């Protein structure tokens, strides 16, 4: 079900949907979920490397968004606000994992990313190597890299989502890229 025509799918539509959802219109909230669920899944899946965990996080993200809808001021895009909730969840999840690992309460710190393509060709091996390199980035760099490279968010928006300065975000991104370039060189 669509509330607006394709040409109206800009911020005005989003604002209207948010306003309706705030007023208790469940269908408007469902529409917001449908528009953003794949973005949230893509980010959480890349960050956690585990499909089920990512699905749980998507659900948690929208549940939190529903509860906190009154706090959304509409200054940024709704998707940015969702990204912020999802990013907080992801970082919290990773920190818990690291703490458990640090205290020897968990066997593995970072699960093998399950989205690595499973083919035996030489290029597949290179892809696996690179996906592992992305998975092995420090969490904040990985988050910045995924938001910029795969989700194609502008640096300014990423900075706003993460509550950091734009220059910090750019530096984090460059460091991540540098590590990936090095890994690619080492593979040759």
């Amino acid at each position, binding site marked *: 079900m669509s509330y607006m025509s394709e040409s109206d799918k800009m911020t005005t539509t989003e604002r209207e949907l948010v306003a309706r959802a705030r007023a208790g219109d*469940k269908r408007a*909230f*469902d529409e917001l*979920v449908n528009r953003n*669920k*794949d973005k949230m*899944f*893509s980010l959480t*899946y*890349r960050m956690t490397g585990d*499909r089920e965990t990512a*699905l749980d996080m*998507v*659900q948690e993200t*929208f*549940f939190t968004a*529903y*509860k906190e809808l009154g706090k959304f001021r509409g200054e940024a895009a709704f998707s940015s606000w969702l990204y912020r909730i999802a990013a*907080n969840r992801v970082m*919290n999840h990773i*920190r*818990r994992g*690291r*703490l*458990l*690992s*640090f*205290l*020897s*309460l*968990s066997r593995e710190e970072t699960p093998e990313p399950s*989205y690595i*393509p499973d083919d035996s060709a030489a*290029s597949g091996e*290179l*892809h696996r190597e*690179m*996906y592992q390199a*992305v998975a092995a980035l*420090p*969490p*904040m760099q990985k988050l910045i890299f995924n938001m*910029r*490279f*795969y*989700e*194609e968010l502008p640096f300014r928006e990423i900075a706003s989502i993460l509550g950091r300065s734009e220059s910090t975000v*750019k530096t984090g*991104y*460059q460091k991540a*890229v540098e590590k*990936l*370039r090095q890994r*690619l*060189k080492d593979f040759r």
Partner: protein
Amino acid sequence: MKNNHNDNNLFLNFGALKPQAPDTESALEAELRHLQETLRAEKPLKMTDGESRRVLNNLDLRLGRYQRRAVTFYNYTYRLAAVTAALFLVVMTATLTLFDMPAVTEQSATVTMATDDSDSATDSLDETYVYLLVNDYVQSQGYGSGETLLGELGDEELTYLEKNLKFGDSR
């Protein structure tokens, strides 16, 4: 994953500065293009229809429960009772403190002394101490209790532990 990147944006995509020398520029461009093609070779990460339905159904159930809880009369009654009880306790404690000052002071001094005796070496969080404490707990409670123990930690607690135990991002 979107695919509107092109070669003109290559340097911008990777946050790299274009080198001045043409040779270096073409070498770097080739390297970045290779990196981009490699990383973009995967399929877009999307939920399957089944997963999407499952997430939406679960979300609907949770939102339904949340809405029912939010509007239930008993919820307000319960909150009102809790607030009243808390206020009553505060008033009672304040009253008792005012009328029974010596006894309270004596008790506090004893507690302070006991704490000082037993805990003088652990003014700040010591990672070995925490490690032993947690492992003792886990050994006594069995496998999986670590997750239970840490399951309820909030952001502030995690930040505190991360800072003091130095388990955070060091790379």
